[in-house]
C-alpha cells in the first residue's frame, strides 16, 4: 500500500470514514439534521474528489480493487444516487416515530459496498462488496419497524439474498477450483483461447448467475422484487432499484464481458432465456397491478431484461449502451420513487398517508394533477421516460440498447424488447391517466392539503431537468461514456 494507492482509494476511505463519523455523532448527540448534513458532506466530498483521483489514471490497489475510469464513473453515479436518496429520506423519516439516524450509517455503508462492487477485481472484493451492500440493505428495508410490511420485506430479502449469495459463493469456489486464481485479470488470462469451458466452469458461471440474477431481479430470481419494493420505506426502494442493481450490473459487465462468457453457446442461451423471460414476465406482471411501488418493481424486472439484451450484444457499443441506460434509469427511477417518497412523507398528520403506510396505492394518485400539478408533471415525465417516449432520457437509453442488439443481430431479443415495451406503455399510461383524472369528491373533505417538502422538491426538480437534458442533449454523457468504455475494453 503506497501513498499513491491510498490516494486512489480516497473516495472509498471518505465514504467509510463518514459512516464512522456519523456513528460517533450519534453517540455524542442524536440530531437528525446534523447526521443528514454529515452524510451529505461525506458523499459530496466523495463526488468532488472523484475527478481528481480519476485523473491519476487507472491503478490496481492490492489484488482486490481496480480503480480505473470505469470504477470512478460508476462510483460517481452511485454516490450521486445515494445523495438523492439521503435527501429523500430526510423528509420521509422526519415526522415518523423512532430513531432515524442509524439509517444514514447504513446508507453510507451500502453505498461503499456498491462502490466496492464496481471496483471489484477479485472474487473476495466482489463477495465482500456484495455483502456489505446486502447486510446494510436488510436493515434499511426493515428500517420502519413500526410498519409490519417493512419487517416482512427485510426478512424476505434477507433469506433469499443469503441463499442466493451462497449460490454465488459456490460458483466462485468452482471457478477457483478449476483455475486456481480468483483475480479477474488472471482468470481472463487463463481463459484466453479456451474453446470449451468444461463442467466446473459452466456450473460455476451458472451458479454465479443465480447470485447476480437475484440482485438484478431477473426472471426466475425476481419474485422478491414486488414485495420488497412495496414493504420497504420509499427512499430505500429507490436505493434498491437503482444503486444495488446498477452496481451489480456494472460488475456483471466487467466480469462476464471481459471473461467472454457469452462466447459459450450454452451460457449465451441461458442469458438469452433470462432476458426474454424478464422482459415478458416483468411487463405482463405489471399490467393489472394496483400498487405503484409494485408496478415500478415489475417494470424494473423488464428494464433489467432490456439491459441483458445489450449485455449479450457485448462489445464496446453495448457497454456504452448499458452505461447510458443505467444512468438514465437511475435518474428516472430516483425521480419516480422520489415522488412516491415525497407523497409518503408527512408522518402522522398530513396528506393522505400516515405513519404506517406509504402512498403506493394507485388510488392515492387519482387527481394528483389537480392537487399537485408539479409533482404529477414530474411523475408523468418519469413514467414516460420509463416507457421510452422520445425527448426523455429513457428513449435515448432504449434506442442505444436496441441499436446495440440490432448491430449484434440479436433479432429475437430485440423483437421481444419491442413487444415488451409495447405492453409496458399500457401500465405506465394507466398511472398517468389516473393522475389526470378528477380528484374524487368524497375524498376532498377528509384529505388535508399536502405539504411537500421543499428539499424533496428541489431533488425532484434537478432529476426532472436531468431527465430532459439527457433526452435532448445526451451527447456529452455519451462521449464521456464512450471514452470510459474505450479504456476498459
Amino acid at each position: 500500500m503506497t501513498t499513491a494507492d491510498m490516494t486512489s482509494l480516497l473516495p472509498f476511505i471518505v465514504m467509510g470514514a463518514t459512516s464512522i463519523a456519523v456513528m460517533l455523532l450519534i453517540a455524542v448527540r442524536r440530531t437528525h439534521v446534523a447526521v443528514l448534513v454529515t452524510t451529505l458532506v461525506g458523499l459530496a466530498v466523495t463526488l468532488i474528489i472523484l475527478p481528481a483521483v480519476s485523473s491519476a489514471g487507472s491503478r490496481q490497489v492490492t489484488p482486490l480493487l481496480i480503480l480505473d475510469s470505469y470504477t470512478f464513473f460508476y462510483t460517481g453515479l452511485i454516490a450521486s444516487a445515494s445523495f438523492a436518496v439521503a435527501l429523500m429520506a430526510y423528509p420521509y423519516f422526519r415526522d415518523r416515530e423512532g430513531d432515524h439516524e442509524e439509517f444514514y450509517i447504513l446508507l453510507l455503508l451500502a453505498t461503499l459496498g456498491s462502490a466496492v462492487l464496481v471496483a471489484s477485481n477479485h472474487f473476495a472484493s466482489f463477495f465482500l462488496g456484495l455483502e456489505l451492500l446486502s447486510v446494510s440493505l436488510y436493515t434499511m428495508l426493515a428500517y420502519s419497524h413500526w410498519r409490519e410490511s417493512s419487517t416482512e420485506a427485510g426478512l424476505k430479502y434477507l433469506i433469499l439474498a443469503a441463499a442466493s449469495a451462497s449460490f454465488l459463493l459456490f460458483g466462485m469456489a468452482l471457478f477457483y477450483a478449476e483455475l486456481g486464481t480468483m483475480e479477474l485479470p488472471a482468470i481472463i488470462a487463463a481463459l484466453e483461447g479456451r474453446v470449451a469451458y468444461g463442467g466446473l466452469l459452466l456450473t460455476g458461471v451458472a451458479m454465479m448467475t443465480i447470485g447476480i440474477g437475484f440482485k438484478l431481479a431477473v426472471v426466475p430470481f425476481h419474485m422478491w422484487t414486488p414485495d420488497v419494493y412495496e414493504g420497504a420505506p420509499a427512499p430505500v426502494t429507490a436505493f434498491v432499484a437503482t444503486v444495488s442493481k446498477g452496481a451489480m450490473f456494472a460488475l456483471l459487465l466487467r466480469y462476464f464481458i471481459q471473461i467472454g462468457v457469452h462466447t459459450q453457446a450454452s451460457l449465451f442461451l441461458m442469458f438469452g432465456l433470462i432476458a426474454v423471460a424478464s422482459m415478458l414476465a416483468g411487463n405482463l406482471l405489471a399490467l393489472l397491478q394496483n400498487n405503484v411501488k409494485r408496478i415500478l418493481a415489475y417494470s424494473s424486472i423488464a428494464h433489467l431484461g432490456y439491459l441483458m439484451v445489450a449485455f449479450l450484444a457485448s462489445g464496446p457499443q453495448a457497454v456504452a449502451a448499458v452505461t447510458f441506460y443505467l444512468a438514465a434509469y437511475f435518474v428516472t427511477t430516483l425521480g419516480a420513487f422520489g415522488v412516491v417518497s415525497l407523497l409518503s412523507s408527512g408522518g402522522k398528520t398530513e396528506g393522505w398517508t400516515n405513519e404506517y403506510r406509504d402512498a403506493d396505492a394507485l388510488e392515492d394518485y387519482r387527481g394528483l394533477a389537480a392537487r399537485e400539478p408539479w409533482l404529477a408533471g414530474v411523475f408523468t415525465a418519469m413514467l414516460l421516460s420509463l416507457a421510452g417516449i422520445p425527448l426523455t432520457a429513457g428513449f435515448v437509453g432504449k434506442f442505444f440498447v436496441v441499436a446495440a442488439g440490432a448491430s449484434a443481430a440479436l433479432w429475437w431479443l430485440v423483437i421481444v424488447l419491442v413487444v415488451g415495451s409495447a405492453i409496458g406503455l399500457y401500465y405506465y399510461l394507466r398511472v398517468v391517466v389516473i393522475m389526470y383524472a378528477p380528484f374524487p369528491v368524497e375524498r376532498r373533505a377528509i384529505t388535508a392539503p399536502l405539504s411537500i417538502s421543499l428539499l424533496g422538491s428541489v431533488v425532484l426538480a434537478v432529476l426532472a431537468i436531468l431527465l430532459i437534458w439527457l433526452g435532448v442533449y445526451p451527447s456529452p454523457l455519451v462521449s464521456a461514456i464512450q471514452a470510459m468504455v474505450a479504456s476498459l475494453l
Partner: protein
Amino acid sequence: MEAVFYISGAIAVLSTIGVITRLNAVHALLYLVVSLIAVALVFYSLGAPFVAALEVIIYAGAIIVLFVFVIMLLNLGPQGSREERQWLSLKTWVGPAVLGVILIAELVYTFGLQPSHPAGVSVVEPQQVSIALFGPYVLGVEMASLLLLAGLVGAYHLGQRDDFRRPAQPEAEESKTGTRSDYLAHEGRALSSSTEKGAGSEIGPARLKGDEQ
C-alpha cells in the same frame, strides 16, 4: 487421513439431514453443531487446520450460541414442536426434496466428470493464511470490519422492541384490492376486517397459541 475425510463427510451429511428434519429447535441445533465439527474435521483432513479451528470456535461456538440465545429469549416450548409436526407433513417434503436431489445429481454428475485432481496434498499453515490475510487481502479485512459494523448497527436498530408502544392502528395493506384502503385508514376507521381477511386465516391460530403462553 483419507478415512477421516470420508467418515467425517458422511457424519456431516447425516447430521445435516438431522438439522433440517428435527422438530425441536434445540435438537436441530445440536445436530448442526455435530455437522459443523464434522466439517471442521474435513478441513483438517484437507490440510487447513486454521479454518478447522475457526469453524469450531466461531461457527459451532459463537453463532450457534446466538441461535440458542434467541430460542431461550422467545421461550419456545414443546408447543413449537407441535407446530412443526403439523407443518412438516410428508407432502411438503416432496417438491423441495425433488429439487434438492436434482441439484445434487447435477453437481455430482458435473464434478464426477472432472479429471481426478488430488486435494489436500499439502498443509497450508496458519502462518501462511495470516500473511496472505494481512498482505494482499488487507483491504478485504477492512471491508469485513465494515461488514460487521453494518451487522452491528442493523442488529441494534432492529433489536428495539417498540411494538408495544405502537398504537393499535393496523396497516392498510391490501395490494391488489387496495383501492379503498387509504381514505378509510385515514379516517381512522379500523380496517381490521380487510386485514383479517388478508392474513387472518394464516396468523389466527398461531396468534392464539402465542397468547395462550
